[in-house]
């Protein structure tokens, strides 16, 4: 494990990703302390340009809301959606994949057709349809994003399980009379998990983007500030106050980049370990 951590830290991608993510998490955690007021509250004249007012370093938007407060609180929304959507997607996906792979036969067929059905619909359209029917709020958005993301983990988990279930230790577990469900979730699933976890970074990154896109289309939760909604607001004044779109846009780019690089570093470190085995 220590070697694994060392190898991760030695990869430049992983390090950059880690630093970016750490900054993001720090922003999200510090936001309520640095800006205890509602980030949507009106604090100054509208459309103050960035770096002109020391108390409002990144300026204000069309209603006079602090852009820096929005940026920091927006990190919370992005992070929350990303992490929870990935958790839900991986949890649902691995369970479905494990059951399908381990049970085989008709159950496998049925579950995999469901996976196919979800996979043919683009994840964003699925989320769009779901949110526009149920109405936007943060839990709904998390669920909507997970809806399009769980199929990847499911297929990967199933493929792993198919190979693992033929291993000797699984046969041994059967021989000592363990219940099939116990074998599936205690013996097989933990060993099928690592490659699935490599998918997490991809899911988090796409979840952040989908959330931003939904907010951009006014389908985000209107009561919290998100980067997507900030960009959408800024788009109206793109020609006169481009910083309103650029600032949260940078936030998005760096977040997605950080998550990808972090994932890349993880995969690399893991590949080394696997190669050794």
């Amino acid at each position: 494990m220590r070697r694994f951590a060392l190898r991760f830290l030695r990869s430049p991608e992983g390090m950059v990703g880690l630093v970016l993510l750490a900054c993001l998490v720090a922003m999200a955690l510090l936001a309520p302390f640095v800006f205890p007021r509602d980030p949507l509250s009106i604090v100054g004249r509208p459309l103050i340009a960035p770096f002109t007012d020391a108390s409002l370093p990144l300026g204000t938007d069309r209603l006079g809301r602090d852009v820096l407060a929005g940026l920091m609180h927006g990190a919370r929304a992005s992070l929350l959606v990303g992490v929870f959507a990935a958790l839900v997607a991986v949890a649902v996906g691995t369970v479905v994949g494990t059951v399908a792979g381990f049970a085989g036969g008709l159950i496998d067929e049925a579950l995999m057709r469901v996976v196919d059905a979800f996979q043919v619909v683009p994840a964003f359209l699925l989320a769009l349809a779901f949110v526009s029917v149920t109405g936007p709020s943060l839990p709904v958005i998390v669920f909507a994003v997970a809806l399009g993301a769980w199929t990847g983990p499911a297929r990967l988990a199933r493929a792993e399980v198919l190979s693992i279930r033929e291993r000797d230790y699984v046969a041994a577990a059967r021989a000592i009379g363990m219940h099939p469900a116990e074998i599936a979730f205690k013996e097989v699933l933990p060993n099928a998990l690592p490659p699935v976890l490599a998918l997490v970074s991809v899911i988090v990154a796409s979840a952040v983007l989908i959330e931003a896109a939904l907010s951009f289309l006014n389908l985000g939760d209107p009561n919290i500030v998100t980067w997507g909604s900030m960009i959408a607001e800024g788009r109206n004044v793109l020609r006169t106050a481009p910083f309103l779109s650029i600032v949260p846009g940078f936030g998005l780019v760096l977040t997605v980049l950080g998550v990808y690089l972090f994932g890349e570093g993880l995969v690399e470190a893991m590949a080394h370990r696997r190669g050794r085995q």
Partner: protein
Amino acid sequence: MSSFLISRRSLLQGAASALVLQGALLSALPSLAHAEDAPRGGRLIVAADSEPRNLNPAIVASNGVFFIASKVIEPLAEAALDGEGALAPRLATSWEGSEDGLSITFKLREGVTWHDGKPFTSADVAFSAMEVWKPLQNLGRIVFANLDAVETPDDHTAVFRFSAPTPIQLIRNALPVVTSVLPKHLYEGTEIANNPANSALVGTGPFKFAEYKPGEYYRLTRNDAYWGEGQPKLDEIIFRILPDRAAAASALEAGEIQLAAFSQVPLVDLERISKVPGLKVVTEGYEALTYQLVVEINHRNEILADLKVRQAIAHAIDKNFVVDTVFLGFAEAATGPVPQNAPEFYNPETPEYAFDIDKANALLDEAGHPRGADGTRFALRLLPAPFFSETRQFGDYLRQALAEIGIDVQIVANDTPAHLKAVYTDHDFDIAVGSPVFRGDPAISTTILVQSGIADGVPFSNQGGYANAELDAIIAEAAETVDTEARTALYNDFQRIVAEDLPLINVAEWGFTTVASTRVVNVGNNPRWAVSNWADTGLTP
């Protein structure tokens, strides 16, 4: 008292002594007082942001339809910038109400032909009124509710007979909107709602309907047989479909289109675009199309049923901030349910609610809603109408404004169908941001916002469960008051009571803007310009 059409122009012409204006005299005059002499010819390309499925203005009296259809199908009269009647004659040349309010006589213009060559007669008016306006049209249903019959003593006279006294003031104010005349010979005996002429329009207007390419454009061409002398000026009008608002601004700058109306160019871009050489920003031409920004209130909510709470909300809203920041100055702070640019009805003596946080807080304390440990008094759900970016933005502002006085507001964002259903059918809201239109007479557009007993599901009406017997009585009385002064006085009371009792809170009123190439002349020269016939609009080389 009978009322007659007297435009300022006719007064200036020295015709003041004549109470009944002769059709011949009027038809000889250009219909617009401010008409500039425009050159002949040219093709005007206009941005259109929607493609109405039914283009028939006699059935769907809405601005989206009028924008295109008003050039082809004409009403009996059009709104004019000044003059007592504030009307300019179109297919009718004069109108006169009887003393008892039971009949109105229209003299119709002679020598007018339909685009297919058939003559226009009183039979067309009678048919349109009885078969289309009264039974099928969204607004005509209200205005002509008591219309019994239309008599046609000759080809150029139509006498409207009502079963109950109908105020001439109401009919007059409604003329531009509800009286688009359809050709009887194309509609008689057919299923009117599905007639092919609803999309391929046939009218008497200055332009003929030539072509419609879905998703691309509508094309209108000059009607050489138009009755207006020397009109129309343009050879062709193309309505290019540009649903994306940002696209309209760049198309104007690139010279691909010459005109974008109805604020197709967003307010925030106006300052920049007004400096672009060759383009002009015109704010005139929407005086009779005033939108009102209102806070709709669900009186079923026990907290909001208390007048003090509603007053507190009114005091918490900084109307000037809304005008300056949300509307960038292209609006006016409202004082009551009738906008200030409707001088015929506007009553300036209504109670006002100055922006005063302390007073709002005091009112809420008095009403028995002390602040809790976290500083909030109670929570409300706010549904901002998604129709305009301004209504959404005002929703964001309102949430913050009410947070200042300890009301925790949760915004519920919906798309248009879901918003209409939630507010006007399911009543699933506490407060909502709405944008009703003032259509020239309170009876057409405004009374419905506070009147009780309206069926669930009627959009843009009182669905907040508000009931005030005094207001209902005034509305009912005004509906039957034929005398113009007495009727106006009733609506003055109406405005005072609405402002006192706050069934809804009027925040601001705004019109639209037009951005046009400086080559386009006679832009915005009547109060419904964007939805008028553009007969005098021209294009300089």
